[in-house]
């Protein structure tokens, strides 16, 4: 199955990317090739196979519910592109 340019553009919105027209063309071609390659998995019958999401079959690793020091607010904000020492700042979301 080959991907269309429209599908690729839609995926770029879902992935919160913004592709130029040239990037969209190239991405459509390259993703098409890669998807065609990974579709080789379809030839395997996996109807009775349990999926394996993780190499370690461990579950529910609990930690004691104890208070311990966490990152200081100033440190947590230090790398933010915009902040007011209390909050992360983003462009206004609601219209004027």
């Amino acid at each position: 199955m080959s991907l269309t340019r429209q599908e690729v553009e839609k995926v770029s919105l879902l992935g919160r990317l913004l592709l130029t027209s040239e990037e969209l063309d190239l991405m459509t071609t390259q993703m098409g090739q890669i998807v065609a390659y990974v579709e080789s998995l379809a030839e395997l019958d996996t109807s009775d196979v349990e999926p394996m999401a993780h190499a370690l079959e461990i579950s529910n690793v609990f930690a004691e519910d104890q208070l311990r020091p966490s990152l200081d607010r100033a440190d947590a904000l230090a790398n933010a592109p915009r902040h007011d020492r209390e909050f992360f700042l983003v462009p206004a979301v609601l219209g004027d």
Partner: protein
Amino acid sequence: MSLARQSATELLALLNAGQTTSVALTETFLDQIKQHDPQVKAFLRVDQQAALARAADIDQRRRAGKPLGRLAGLPVAIKDLLCTKGEITTCGSKMLEHFAPPYDATVIAKLKAADAVLIGKTNMDEFAMGGSTENSAYQKTANPWDLERTPGGSSGGAAAAIAAAMAPLSVGSDTGGSIRQPAGLCGITGLKPTYGRVSRYGLVAFASSLDQIGPLAQTAEDTALLLEVLAGHDPLDSTSIDRPVPKYSETVKQPLKGLRLGLVREHFGPGLEAEVEQAVRSAVDVYRSLGATVKDISLPHGKYGVATYYIIAPCEASSNLARYDGVHYGHRTDEKKLESAIAQRRATLQAAGRHAESEAVDNPLVWMYRQSRAEGFGPEVKRRIMLGTYALSAGYYDAYYLKALKVRRLIRNDYDAAFAEVDLIVGPVTTATAFKLGEKVNDPLSMYLVDLYTVSANLAGVGGIAFPCGFGAGGLPIGLQLQAPPFEEERLLRAAHMFQQATDWHQRRAPMVPA
């Protein structure tokens, strides 16, 4: 012999015997960096003053007879995806160009506690996505054996730093072969531990179910020494396993008796270069001469490894990299540029009569995300985010992601069956020696196939080690790969050490390494 040429284990013995100092060592490696890194470009950042100050402090404590850590005074290079508190950690990306993490990765804290001298941060493919280090947003690292060729990737800087004797020890990460493949192409030793052996806390995440941090060095003995410091349970990483850490640096010296090796039939098909096959078969003969028995085995689903990996890894990456939103940390687009981008887009859509869509672009937050990510990420990272987003999107999840998870199980089952018969799997690391820089950059799929022999270990979660077993045309190193059942790092290291005791491939050094 120059200090730069000696193994970390030898250097540590010299330090402990008072025959050299950490300052002298650090100066030696800094000098090698100064002379040759302008050509090799293994390092993104080297803090000469901080390294020397740290070395002087350790020397002083040694002279005063104070207790010292396991690596006291040894320089260690760090792949630039391990968080170092207050020091820039870019992950090879413009997205994190100015990112100074507020905490140390657990392995960094361990190295500091072991009194290692952190000598600098090494170059890598952006977000560890790539097999040549050409996807770095900053520079292309060269292979010290031939400057026109790749050192491999994504830990290309980490491997090149060892091969060029710019550090005796180096820390990398391996998601699909990113330690073993560059180790193989650079003629050094590199180990990918079992998933869960080393804490990933503070490792910039790429594919969380596959990522594992590991050591690179000149010899198996050095690799054991560094792994001993890196490994162990960490409450901050719930996927790190609570099992005792063996004394790798001691047990590495014990040869394995009655070793049963498995040679994977499927590894010797078309695509494998004759010189690589010959070197691997000769290496297997070395093991035979050391008493090992060799058996042909099959990993029938191995041929699906790359396809499985290139679904699972991008899916996890698209999720992990969603955090780079221009809000909390990392690159954010210029707000003025953003406004004009939105206005331009709206005008284009309206001119095309697409009024409904023109309304939809009116969310400045979404546009800020998209614009910031478009500027901050390079082409390969975008490709992986796109692939992962696509494979996880409505209607495709079962066909791609779920299917890949099922094949992953089949790959793991193959390993379990193989390890019921043999102790270690032996084979090539790559199909060929180092390729030329630029050769594969325009063909993502051919770059992905570089991982052919290495990805399955990550999917199955088993450990693997790569080390030199010969040289091909043009004097380029050829690597041998051993893979072991989970948590058998000792076996990998002991087997590699046995080989290195019987051969001298690992002692051959790139031309720029002083005599």
